[in-house]
């Protein structure tokens, strides 16, 4: 192995280790700053966090290989080396060392193709995601994706929700939140539930006789389940959601949709889930802005099917919840 090979290997080894160090660092930073929840379902977050740790470990191994404490040098012949001399490759003439080295060599490094240009290109490509993370702009969807995916207003069209609703309400996540939102369960004494906490961070202290905190998804479940509907129909409730103007089915211009993003795995599969809000006054918030809406849930028949309409008495802008998704 000549010196340029050594230098090339060292640079490549160094690059690999640095890349892993950066990826590991960024993944762990996202994890421990709580930003991973912007991208992933909670059940997947531990795996991604663990991968950050593994990146760092691999990086350490890599650095220790580039800068070894003690260097093993020994010579051997190819037939002794136990390399990947693939039987099929040899059979079909695929395999040849092709590194132009003599039979006896020291720490041989077979060329794997791809010159400096390819290495730079790959490095840029692998740094690209990190640059996007640093830019901090990719943290939520705009109205464009919501419109492209279509707002779900029927619980049967929501991943994993239909089976739960039809077979066993108690086993579904939404019915869990619904149960928590019922007067008997939602109280200041029990603010630790995810659904209630996520839906209205500021509500934990406000629900003691005030409006009942509900999720958008709860109202959609209630459309399908009359027994649950009765728990809050006609009562004052409070919903947090993102503002989406209604372009159809809104002849009087007094309706909009309050949506939340429902995810199965990650934000890439997020589906907007929405409930219609009726409010006669103009809304002073931009599209996809966060709103806290107080009003009375109604479940009228519209277009031949039962729907959920929240007749709002108060609509105000609010900060985004710490965890923007519903699951």
């Amino acid at each position, binding site marked *: 192995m000549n010196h340029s090979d050594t230098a090339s290997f060292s640079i490549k*080894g160094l690059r*690999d280790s640095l*890349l*892993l160090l950066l*990826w590991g660092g960024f*993944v762990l930073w996202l994890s421990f700053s709580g930003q*991973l929840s912007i*991208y*992933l379902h909670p059940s*997947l977050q531990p*795996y*991604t966090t*663990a*991968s950050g740790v593994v990146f760092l470990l*691999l990086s350490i*191994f*890599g650095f220790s*290989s580039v800068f070894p404490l003690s260097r*093993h040098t020994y010579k051997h012949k190819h037939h*002794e*080396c*136990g*390399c*990947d001399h*693939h*039987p*099929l490759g040899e059979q*079909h003439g*695929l395999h*040849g*060392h*092709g590194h132009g080295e003599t039979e006896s060599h020291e720490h*041989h490094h*077979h060329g*794997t*193709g791809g010159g400096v240009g390819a290495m730079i290109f*790959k490095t840029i*490509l*692998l740094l*690209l*995601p990190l640059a*996007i993370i640093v830019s901090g*702009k*990719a943290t939520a969807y*705009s109205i*464009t*994706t919501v419109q*492209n995916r279509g707002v779900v207003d029927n619980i*049967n*069209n*929501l*991943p*994993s929700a*239909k*089976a739960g609703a*039809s*077979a066993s309400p108690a086993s579904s996540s939404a019915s869990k939140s619904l149960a928590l939102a019922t007067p008997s369960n939602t109280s200041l004494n029990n603010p630790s539930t995810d659904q209630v906490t996520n839906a209205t961070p500021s509500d934990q202290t406000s629900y003691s006789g005030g409006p009942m905190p509900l999720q958008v998804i709860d109202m959609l479940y209630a459309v399908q389940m009359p027994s649950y509907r009765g728990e809050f129909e006609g009562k004052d409730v409070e919903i947090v959601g993102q503002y989406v103007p209604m372009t159809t089915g809104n002849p009087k211009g007094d309706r909009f949709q309050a949506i939340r993003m429902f995810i*199965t*795995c990650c934000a*890439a599969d997020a589906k907007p889930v929405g409930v219609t809000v009726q409010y006669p006054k103009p809304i002073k918030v931009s599209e996809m802005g966060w709103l806290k809406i107080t009003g009375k849930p109604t479940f009228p028949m519209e277009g031949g099917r039962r729907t959920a309409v929240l007749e709002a008495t108060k609509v105000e802008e609010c900060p985004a919840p710490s965890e923007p998704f519903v699951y």
Partner: protein
Amino acid sequence: MLAIAWFTFSFPDFQYAFLSILLEGLPFLLGGAILSGLLEEFLPQSLMTRLLPKNPRVAIVVSGLLGVIFPVCECGIVPVVRRLLKKGLPVSCGVTYMLAAPIVNPLVILSTLAAFRGQGAWEMTILRFGLGLSVAILAGWVVSYCSPASILRPGLLSPDHDHDHHHGGSGGMLDRLQNASLVATKDFLDVAVFFVIGAAAASLFSTAVNQEIILPLAANPPLAIVSLMGLASVLSVCSTTDAFIAATLTTFPMAAKLAFLVFGPMLDFKLLFLYGAAFSKRFIIVLALGLFVVIGLLCWRLSTLNLAW
């Protein structure tokens, strides 16, 4: 923002979906790379050929079923298959394992059962397993008649010694683990390049394409099947959770959902690029067309049988 009737592109949305797919897939890709490193360091080269049945066709069938006891999802499968091919696994067996593993995976079986509860869960799960395995075996058989040189990425089987390895297991366990980690690093970074490109393609389509354009196609079985196979490619959802999405496509016939569940884990947009880490471009194109036609035709045939599901 670029906008035409069915395509509206928003760069921040694209970036958001792109990061989400990457962060979701990273642990699985890394898991596959770690497994690859361990296989390289600890799996004797001769063991693979000794364990596989001598009859090539039986070996292909066994490779298809390997995913049941050796489950890897579609993101992690590519580095594993690359390494197994380097270790001497016949290409036909490698292709079969790669295509079948994300479907015959026990987690996938359970998630399909759960997602289709109340919608013919057992029928859908059995058909998904059976069709996925059959198509993978068929692909393996076809590949067994082809020259590996025409299928594999040039240079794939060349030894890759970009690491200071210590041959013959003469080093201690720490040395061997270090070797395994170096192989894992190399494999991860090799495949991650393709994963980044695939995630970008999947993000572009999943955020910019209006997904409601396919709804009118639901009433026509052949078009419904084709459109859901297209949707599966666009969404590039992990095979462990795709059933939950398929189950909600209530306006589509079950045969179309089956096509979604079989085609997606074998060839979605991110896989189209990921396979580039192991296979030649020509093979990937032929594989994509072949899978599209075969799965489409089989599902269409199933739709004409009026099965009670």
